[in-house]
């Protein structure tokens, strides 16, 4: 089980050809209180860098881009009832969606935990 990170502050956890995607603790801290998350439906194709979800804090709406290309297999329904899970457990119960990877080589350009930590310190 490997976790990758993007410069857009998403994490991607890989198990076989399935990726679970969410936003990082750093990202939720920047956004503040999250009150709504719009997630992609299962079956939707998302493209690396394309819009995949919308996260709304009290102050503003922010797009979440797909970190890799693939077909969405599941969205986290728990976020409809309790969007604040993204604040309280961003890299666990606050995951956004799962997808089946179309092109695993896209993972190569992403950061590991250590590189991401260094990246955040320079933000």
């Amino acid at each position, binding site marked *: 089980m490997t976790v990758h990170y993007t410069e857009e502050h998403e994490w991607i956890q890989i198990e076989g050809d399935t990726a679970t995607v969410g936003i990082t603790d750093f990202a939720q801290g920047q956004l*503040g209180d999250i*009150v709504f998350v719009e997630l992609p439906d299962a079956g939707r194709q998302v493209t690396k860098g394309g819009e995949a979800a919308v996260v*709304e804090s*009290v102050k503003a709406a922010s797009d979440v881009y797909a970190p890799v290309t693939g077909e969405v297999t599941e969205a986290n329904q728990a976020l409809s009832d309790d969007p604040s899970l993204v604040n309280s457990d961003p890299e666990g119960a606050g995951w956004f969606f799962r997808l089946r990877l179309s092109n695993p080589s896209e993972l190569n350009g992403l950061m590991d935990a250590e590189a991401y930590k260094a990246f955040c310190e320079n933000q």
Partner: protein
Amino acid sequence: MSDATGSLLPLDAWHRARGARMVPFAGYAMPIQYEGIIAEHRWTRESAGLFDVSHMGQIILRGAEAEAGLETLLPADLSILKDGRLRYSLLLTDDAGIIDDLMVTRRGDHFYMVVNGATKEGDIAHLQERLPRTVTLDYMKEQALLALQGPKAAATLARLASGVDALGFMTGGAFEIGGVTAWISRSGYTGEDGFEISVPADRVVEIADLIADQPEVKPIGLGARDSLRLEAGLPLYGHDLDTGTTPVEADLGFAISKRRRSEGGFAGWHRIAAELENGPIRRRVGLTVEGRQPVREGAMVVDDEGNEVGKVTSGGFSPMLEAPIAMAYVPAASAEPGSAIRLAQRGKIFEAKVAPMPFVPHKYHRKGAGQ
């Protein structure tokens, strides 16, 4: 002094030391939040929140012609404004556009006015151009302004400034606090009972410390200030009000005093009289939005065919109602509470209903009738 986020206010270091996230607002670096907008919002509704509003313009207008001069620019009846009383009013263009909204207080031989931070320079230029030359205008750059708002504000502040709890809503006076003479009024912009406290900028750090050290008090940022005023149904200049909106459209008819309605004699009166007589073509209303997703400023009000017929001017998530709420200008025919309103944002349609404002009841400290 300034940094990337704007000019520095007297409490800049004070905010940063308390963990505030600073953002640019009205040309200043200002605290958007400390611990979080929802927590700060609820704290203000349940206890007492301390706001730094030192970016706002504090102005003194003095002279024998000040009252008559101001009455040519504002729709307020200043002749019945008693000493130590304040009133919400509007600076108007000749065609009834709103240049700014403000508070004006009669203070002995002069008027004290508090105007918005982003508009103060323009307001001052307008006042200097339009008031008689015998009226002197003093922009009190050396004064800071704090607000303490919430159900515990009165008991808390009375411990520090003896006698403030005797003030009624929209009255003010001079009080001693922490060895400083402050002008304190029972007013604010959250819908809660509370006070606004004008103190010399070179003493504001100690006064802010004194107030924030009280167990009922936490510092509150601009984020919660915005969500609190939205729940209270209070318009924000530059968003819900501008020179393209009139007081009647903005549903601020209460700011046009009875005598002024019949006598006129102020900027924009002809248009205002016509709109009072015939009704405006559009009106500012409150909206409750279906679902949980907030609809923001800039979203369109659309008709059944999808044509734009109005605009959302403020929108967000109400921490008290735990639902999205908004203010919008809608056609007058759709402005009655309960009217169904359709909104479009980022290609998505939202269903909303006109709701009476305030969304959350006001808790002002009114002493009897007529205040």
